[in-house]
C-alpha cells in the first residue's frame, strides 16, 4: 500500500437500516403512527413548554429512531401534555398518546430519574 500523505475518512452517515434498536421497534409496535412523522417540526413550533425549555418532540422522535435516547429523553420531563402538538400535526399523529407510550417503553423509572436530577 502506498502512503500518499492523506487517506480515506469514514463517512459520518448513519445507516438507520443497520441500527439495532429494539426499544424503538417496541415503540413502533405499540404506536405505529411514530413512523408517520416527517419531522416537519410543527409540534415543536406550537409547543408551550418549548418556549421556555429545550423541549422538542421532533428531536425526541429523531433521536429515538437513531438509538440516541439518552441525549433527548430528558426533554420529555418538560411536557405538560397540553396536546397543542396533537392539534397541529399534519400527519394526524396522536402525539400526546405517543409521549405517554415513549414513557412506558423507555421506562418510567428512567424518565423519573432524569426528572429528579
Amino acid at each position, binding site marked *: *500500500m*502506498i502512503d*500518499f*500523505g*492523506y*487517506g*480515506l*475518512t469514514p*463517512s459520518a452517515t448513519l445507516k438507520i437500516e443497520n441500527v439495532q434498536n429494539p426499544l424503538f421497534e417496541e415503540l413502533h409496535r405499540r404506536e405505529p403512527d411514530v413512523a408517520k412523522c416527517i419531522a416537519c417540526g410543527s409540534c415543536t413550533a406550537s409547543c408551550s413548554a418549548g418556549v421556555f425549555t429545550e423541549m422538542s418532540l421532533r428531536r425526541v422522535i429523531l433521536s429515538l429512531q437513531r438509538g440516541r435516547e439518552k441525549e433527548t429523553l430528558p426533554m420529555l420531563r418538560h411536557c405538560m401534555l397540553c396536546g397543542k402538538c396533537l392539534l397541529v400535526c399534519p400527519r394526524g399523529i396522536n402525539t400526546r398518546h405517543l409521549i405517554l407510550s415513549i414513557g412506558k417503553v423507555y421506562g418510567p423509572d428512567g424518565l423519573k430519574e432524569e426528572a429528579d436530577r
Partner: protein
Amino acid sequence: MIYQGKQRIWSEYQKEIPTDHWFYVRSCIRQSFFPASEKTFLEILRQRLGKDVYETPHHTTCGGIAYHSEAIPQETMMTIIARQFALMTEAGYENYVCSCITSFGLYSEVIEDWREFPELEAKIRENLWKATKREFKIPTYLAHASDLIYKFRNEIAEQAKFRLVNKATGEPLRVVEHIGCHYSKMFPSKGVGGAEYPYVLAGMVESWGGEVIDYPERRHCCGFGFRQYLVRANRGYSVSNTHKKFESMEPFKPDMIITNCPGCPYFLDRWQYVIAEQTGKTYGQDGYGIPVFTYEEVAGLVLGYDPWDLGLQTHQVAVEPLLDKMGIPYKPEDKYKGLNGKELQRPEFPMNIKCC
C-alpha cells in the same frame, strides 16, 4: 398528473440554446488533463455540423481557480472576465460558450452580480478601460460546451458509427452521468433541467443508445472542490467524497462514467487509482476501474474517432474494456505513440488496479 401538465412544467426547466455563431473559450486545466477533448469539440461543431465557432488565442484564464482559492479578489476576477467579453464584442459575437464548468459558474455569477449591482459593473468597466482601453457587451446567450453537444445530440446520433451498446449482448451500456456542481447547482435556470433534473448528459446518453443509472449519490460532488484539493492535508476529504460515490454506484455495475466538468473526470479517474492503492479495492470488472470520459470523448467515440487520437491513453483507468464492449477497433501497439508515430514514454503501471 396529466401529460400536458408535465410537459408544461418540464418546459420551465429548459434552456434556450442558439444553434450557430459562438465565441469559444477554452479551459485552463482540461487541455492538460484531457488534451484532445476541446479539439474534438471544435472539430465536431465545425467539420461535422458546419457551425461557426470562433476562437481567439488572446483569451486567458477566467481567474476561477485563483478566485475560489482566495488568491485574487472578486474585482480582479471580474475585470479578467470583462476582458474576455471585450474580446467577444470585438470579434462581433453575442453568444458565448465556455469549455469549463468553473468558468461557466463564474460567468453566470458575474452577470448576475452586475444585474443586481449596476454600480459594480460600472466600476469594472472603468477598471478594464484604464487597464486595456477595451469596452465590452455582456453576452446575449451564455452556454457551456456540453449544452451545444446536448443541442446537437440527435444530429451526432445520425452520424454515429458506434452506439453505447454492448456489441456482444445487444444490451445498452450502463452509464453513470456526473454533472459538475457549478453547472446548475448555483444558478439552476442556467442549466438544462435545472438543479433538480439536470438532463444535459442524460440526454446525450439516451440519444446515443446507453442507459442512465440512477444511484443514491448521483448528485454528490466528485470531491474536487478547490481548497480541499489544493491543500495536501485536505485531500483525504476529496478522496473520501469520490469513494462515497463509487461505493454508491458499485452495486449498479456501471460500464462507464460521462462527465461535463474539468475536475470531475480527472478526480473520478485518478482517485480510483489512489483508492485501489490504499485499500486494494477496484470498482470495474476483473480488477479494472470504471472508465471515465468527458462528453467530447464519448461523442468522438460514437462518431468513430480513433481512441488514441482522442487522448484516451492519458486516462489513469484503462479504457480498453469499454472499447471492446462497444466494438471499437484500436491498435494496442499505437497507444503510447504520438501524432508523428514517435514512441512516447510509457507510464509506470499501478499495483492494485489493472491497466492494459
